[in-house]
């Protein structure tokens, strides 16, 4: 089965991103394909490498990055949502004249079309949000 996963909330404030992580892990464990994880709304805040959560809590951003690198996951951050909320990669940094960027390894910023295309390609869309 081929999945596209949508994550609508940022880390810590809502359980959504933890739920999505656990779901993605379980889907991979069961031998399914996760075609794409699409971060939308405040979900784009999962992708900043600037977080430093307490050591006794889950490091959500790093967990996404590790999961992506081990499973070749496509973690896509919506560009329009990212611009409203301050998530920047090198391309966005240049385009919008920012003095730095904060995207974490394994994430890429792209358009909403990636969500729609994901829904067309995949067998299932599963949404984690508020």
């Amino acid at each position, binding site marked *: 089965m081929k999945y596209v996963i*949508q994550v609508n909330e940022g880390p810590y404030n809502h359980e959504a991103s933890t739920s999505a992580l656990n779901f993605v892990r379980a889907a991979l464990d069961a031998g399914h394909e996760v075609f794409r994880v699409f971060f*939308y709304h405040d979900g784009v805040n999962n992708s900043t490498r600037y977080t430093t959560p307490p050591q006794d809590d889950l490091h959500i951003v790093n967990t996404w990055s590790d999961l992506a690198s081990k499973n070749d996951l496509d973690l896509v951050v919506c560009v*329009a*949502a990212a611009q409203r909320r301050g998530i920047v990669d090198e391309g966005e940094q240049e385009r919008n004249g920012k003095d730095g960027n904060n995207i974490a390894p394994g994430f890429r910023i792209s358009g909403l*079309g990636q969500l*729609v*295309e994901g*829904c067309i390609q995949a067998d299932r869309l599963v949404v984690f949000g508020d």
Partner: protein
Amino acid sequence: MSDIKNFLYLNRRAPYGTVYAWESLEVVLIGAAFEQDVSLAFVDDGVYQIMKGQDTSELGIKNFSPTYSALGDYDVQKIYVEKESLDARGLTVDDLLDLKYEDEDDDWAEKDSIKVVSADELAKIIDDSDVVLSF
């Protein structure tokens, strides 16, 4: 599975209090380029999204409600509004934007996009879709 999927955008939130209404609409606009079969449903507080007369000038934020009137140009012709949700909120279809599309199979006649449906009918619309995007 056919090449064209039935996309249902399920809108359940009021506008402005949260961004979901507006960012849902952004997906609909972008999604139009993919030429899928698109329906929008407004249920629960989602019916408030298409109330007419919205004016955000005193809040200083963007009024995105005119965009709903452009949906016909994006080939979005099926807009379902749940009757039970309207009734509970004291609203009728007269309180809503007058959304139209031009029917290319009927000499481009202008037709109403909004169809008021019951909860049971909406359940079947959800059932008939291939992908449900919830906002």
